[in-house]
Structures are given as structure tokens and as C-alpha cells.
């Protein structure tokens, strides 16, 4: 397809990308505000509510997305790309806004978590249908030899959606007190409400779009698929391609993506114990610097082929994840820092004592904020059991260093380490839309490419934080043990992809 004038393709990319960006924003604000959402809608002490919380987190991210891919993929191959991804946008925007207006558990009881769960499921379904539509739509407009470059703009939206959601949350949070932000009708709801405006604009723009020229042509010729699901997954020729797309490319891409952008943040927050703001701004800066590389690698894939760029991204992740994450731990190890740096100041400790029931002993928690000469700051939290009998020395239950703040040089070093990981993301993710589009025929493309994409990203990728954390709870595990999951999955994918995928670019996606 080379008939699309460059201004036309610019409009196509802009209107497709804007909607996809907003869908990612909607999806991520739920995850980024998960802690507040759980206290507002899923109080821990309530068994049913906690159960629904697990369902909301798991079901939406890991089960519903592939179903959304099937439902909307089928629709996209039956009625067209334009109306299908218009529908996913309305569903996503509407459900996001509605999550923001549901009263908390205190006001409406168990209805609050039930409604949130239902809306979260709708979000997952909509996201499952959106990406395949946008990627297919842009690719089917793109001129020959530039498909990787044009679809890479769609690829930037997932990362920019995360950037936008983190940015909006940080701005909202910094403009009010902590109490105002966390209250039942507080500032945490504003990012949800903002969604309705963004979606309104995007719907207006998308309504003006035309149907994909390739799909229109098929429709005119009466060659659209009567049953895209059956054709995609029952017909052996197509099923073969769906399987190789999943196990030879998307599975590895998914784990590289979620490790670089989500596990990195979770690791900085829960294992390194960086403070709330720094753990997020490190990611924000890294994303800002790395995002142009999606387009670069998309462009490069038009010149040198898609396969080896994606395989190189996986290989680099496999080889360097452990040294990178070890570095996060080494640079913030307080015991090591204290051997090389002097303490600049120590604030008065905050002591909290709680009586142990049915005993005269107490649990004493001492929090001591400390700054080092090099600018490093941390809070030392010790928990001791203090016995009523003064002749028995207190027993130390735990000692932790929390809310660490990095000095400038280490802060930028961390940004570099996260940037490197997101660079791998750009290598595996930049070319993948063009790669998937070229793998499947037009009449079943939306269905066929959506399912492996959402299994690879939703299941293999989406489970990275959960499985990696689970592995660290195994006997003998270290904080780095969780990395074996993404490394293992990427290694299997690298071997399969290197052996079985072709590096040849399919010039003609009309067939």
C-alpha cells in the first residue's frame, strides 16, 4: 500500500496513537493507584473484598485481555477496524471514568469492590481489542518499506501511557496534602475523571477516520472471513503461525517489556526501598530518554529486518539483568555506604511503643532519619521487644532501611540503568507490530495477531512482577532470584525465534 499521501498517514498515525495512548493511560492509572484503590474499595480485613481484589488484579490483567483480543479481533475482521477500535475506546474511557465515581467501601459496602471488578474487567476486554486494531489499521495504511517506522509510533503509546499516568498522579499528589489525596472523594480520583475528557477528544478524532483501505477492498470483493476465530485457530496453517508468533517473539518481548518498565519500578520500591517520588521519577526520566528509540528501531527494522533487532534485545536482557539489579542493591546498601561515607546528620528518632497483649512487655519501633555526607538519606527502622524485667536486654526483631533518597550522581546512574532496560524494550517492542502484521493475512489479521500479543504481554509479561516476587519467597532465594523468570522465558523465546523465525520483510500485506 503506497497510495497514502504522507499527510494522510500522519493523520492516521496521530488519531490511532492518541486513542491507544489514552487506553494505556486508563489501564495504568488503576495499577499506579493500586494501593489507594485497595484501601478505598477492598479493605483487607474483609474476606470477600480481598478476594475480589485478587480477582480484579489477576482477572483483568491476565485472563480478560486475551478474551478481549478474541472478541474484538473477531469483530474487527468481520465489521472493520475503524468501528471496532472506536468501540474499545468508548468502553475503556467509560469504565475508567465510572471507577472514579464509585463511592468507597465505607459508603456502599461490598457493592464497591463488585462494581470496580466489573469495570476493571471491561477495561481489560477493551485493552485486549484496542492494540491489534490500531496496529493493523496503521500498518494497512503504511507505504511499502516504511511499515516498521509508521507502526512504531503506535508502539510508543504503551510507554507514553505509563509516563502520562505517572505524571498526572505525581502532579495531582504534589498539589494537595496527603490526606486530601487519599480521602474517599480525594485527589486520587482526578486522574480517573480526566479520562473522560481525553476519550471525548479521541473519539471525535477517530470518528473522522476512514476504514482501512485493505479491509474496505476485501469487503467490496466479498472476501472477508465468515468466521475469523475458526480460521485463525482451527486452520492448521494459521495456528502454526499463531504459535510461532507467541513462542518465538511475543513471549520474550512481553517479559522484557514488563521487566524494564514495571518490575524495575517494583524492585526499586520494595527491594531497594527508594522513596515514593524517586522510584517514580527515575522511571519517568528513563522513559522520556528511551521513547524515541521505539521509532528508531521501527525505522531500522525496515532496513535490516525485524527478527535480529528483537532477538538482540532479548539477548541483552538475558545477559545484563542480573548485573543491573545487583548494582541497584549495591549502590543503596547502607552498611557498605557507612564504611566509605561519614554520617552528616541524624535527626531525633521517633519512638513508638505498643504493649504486647496479656504481658507487661512492649514492642518498640524506632525510626531514625539519617543523612550521609555524600547526600544519601535513609530512615532506619528498628523493632525491639522490650521486657518488663529490666535485667533482660531488649531483643532486636528487625532492622530495615526505608525511604532511601539517592544523591544526584547515583540518581542519574539509576536513571541510566533503567534507561538501558527500556532501550531493550524499544528493541523488542518497536518492530513487533510490523512483524505481526506481516505474519497474518488481511482477512484474519486483527484476530490472529491480537491473541498471541495479549497472551505474550498480558500473561507472560503481566505476570513478571507476581512470579518474580513469588520466586523470591522460595527457600534459599535472594532478592535477584525473581529475575530467573524473565531471563528463562526470554532465553526460550530467543532460541525458538533465532531458529524458526525469518528475517525477511513481507513487502505485500495485501495478500
Amino acid at each position, binding site marked *: 500500500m503506497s497510495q497514502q499521501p504522507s499527510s494522510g498517514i500522519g493523520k492516521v498515525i496521530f488519531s490511532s496513537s492518541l486513542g491507544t495512548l489514552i487506553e494505556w493511560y486508563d489501564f495504568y492509572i488503576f495499577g499506579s493507584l493500586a494501593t489507594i484503590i485497595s484501601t478505598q474499595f477492598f479493605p483487607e480485613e474483609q*474476606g470477600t473484598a*480481598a*478476594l475480589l481484589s485478587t480477582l480484579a488484579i489477576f482477572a483483568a490483567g491476565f*485472563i480478560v485481555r486475551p478474551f478481549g483480543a478474541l472478541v474484538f479481533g473477531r469483530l474487527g475482521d468481520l465489521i472493520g477496524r475503524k468501528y471496532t477500535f472506536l468501540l474499545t475506546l468508548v468502553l475503556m474511557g467509560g469504565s475508567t471514568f465510572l471507577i472514579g465515581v464509585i463511592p468507597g467501601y465505607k459508603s456502599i459496602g461490598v457493592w464497591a469492590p463488585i462494581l470496580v471488578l466489573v469495570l476493571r474487567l471491561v477495561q481489560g476486554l477493551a485493552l485486549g481489542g484496542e492494540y491489534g486494531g490500531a496496529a493493523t489499521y496503521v500498518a494497512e495504511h503504511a507505504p511499502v518499506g516504511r511499515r516498521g517506522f509508521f507502526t512504531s509510533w503506535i508502539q510508543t503509546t504503551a510507554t507514553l501511557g505509563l509516563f502520562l499516568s505517572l505524571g498526572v498522579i505525581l502532579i495531582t499528589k504534589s498539589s494537595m496534602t496527603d490526606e486530601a489525596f487519599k480521602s474517599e472523594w480525594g485527589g486520587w480520583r482526578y486522574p480517573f475523571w480526566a479520562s473522560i475528557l481525553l476519550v471525548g477528544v479521541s473519539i471525535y478524532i477517530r470518528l473522522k477516520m476512514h476504514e482501512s483501505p485493505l479491509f474496505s477492498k476485501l469487503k467490496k470483493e466479498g472476501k472477508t472471513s465468515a468466521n475469523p476465530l475458526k480460521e485463525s485457530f482451527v*486452520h492448521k496453517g494459521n495456528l502454526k*503461525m499463531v504459535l510461532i508468533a507467541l513462542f518465538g517473539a511475543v513471549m520474550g518481548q512481553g517479559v522484557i517489556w514488563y521487566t524494564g518498565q514495571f518490575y524495575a519500578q517494583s524492585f526499586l520500591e520494595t527491594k531497594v526501598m527508594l522513596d515514593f517520588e524517586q522510584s517514580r521519577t527515575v522511571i519517568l526520566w528513563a522513559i522520556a530518554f528511551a521513547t524515541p528509540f521505539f521509532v528508531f528501531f521501527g525505522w531500522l527494522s525496515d532496513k535490516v529486518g525485524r527478527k535480529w533487532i528483537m532477538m538482540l534485545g532479548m539477548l541483552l536482557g538475558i545477559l545484563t539483568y542480573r548485573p543491573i539489579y545487583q548494582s541497584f542493591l549495591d549502590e543503596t546498601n547502607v552498611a557498605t555506604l557507612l564504611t566509605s561515607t561519614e554520617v552528616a546528620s541524624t535527626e531525633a528518632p521517633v519512638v513508638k511503643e505498643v504493649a504486647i497483649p496479656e504481658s507487661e512487655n512492649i514492642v518498640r519501633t524506632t525510626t531514625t532519619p539519617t543523612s550521609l555526607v555524600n547526600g544519601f538519606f535513609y530512615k532506619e527502622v528498628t523493632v525491639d521487644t522490650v521486657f518488663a524485667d529490666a535485667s533482660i536486654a531488649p531483643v532486636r526483631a528487625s532492622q530495615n532501611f526505608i525511604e532511601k533518597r539517592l544523591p544526584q550522581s547515583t540518581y542519574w546512574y539509576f536513571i541510566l540503568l533503567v534507561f538501558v532496560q527500556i532501550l531493550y524494550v524499544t528493541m523488542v517492542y518497536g518492530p513487533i507490530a510490523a512483524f505481526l502484521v506481516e505474519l497474518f493475512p488481511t482477512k484474519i489479521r486483527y484476530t490472529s495477531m491480537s491473541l498471541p500479543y495479549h*497472551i505474550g504481554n498480558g*500473561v507472560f509479561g503481566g505476570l513478571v512482577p507476581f512470579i518474580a516476587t513469588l520466586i523470591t519467597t522460595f527457600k534459599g532465594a535472594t532478592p535477584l532470584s525473581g529475575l530467573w523468570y524473565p531471563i528463562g522465558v526470554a532465553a526460550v523465546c530467543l532460541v525458538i525465534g533465532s531458529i524458526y523465525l525469518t528475517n525477511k520483510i*513481507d513487502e505485500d500485506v495485501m495478500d
Partner: protein
Amino acid sequence: MGPAAILFLIWQAYEKVGLANAKVAEALTEAAKEAAKGVALNTFLQWAIIIAVFVPIAFGFVIFGKYALQGEYDHLPESSKEIEDGV
């Protein structure tokens, strides 16, 4: 690897759900027992979801392995017609 993955998942689920249930039995007070029950239920649910999602994928992996061994991927189709002819 597909069958090994399925067995590993089932073994892990059995072990982790068992551990969570053991904690319910070990809980000394009623309050601790209730809390441990909630955790056990959540652990069961999490593993049920993981198995429901990953076992079909592992079956897909088995089918992929079968096709690969049969040489189905020695030449990848270069047109839709080739895919459709691939029965």
C-alpha cells in the same frame, strides 16, 4: 518442556496451597485463624487462575513442539495463499 511446565505448575500449586492451609491449622487464636483462612483462600484462587491460564498455553507449546519436530517450520509461508494451503 510443555509437559514439564504443566507438572511443575501443578506441583507448585499443590505445595503453596498446602503451605497456606497448614498455616490455618497452626494459627493459635480465632482471629489469626480467620486471617490465615483469607490468605489460604487467596492463595488457592491465585494458583487456580495461574493453572487455568498457563496449562492451555503449555498445551500450545506441546503442539508447537510437535509441528517443529515434524519440520513444519523449516519453511515459513511467504504469502497468505501458502498459509491457507498449509492445511
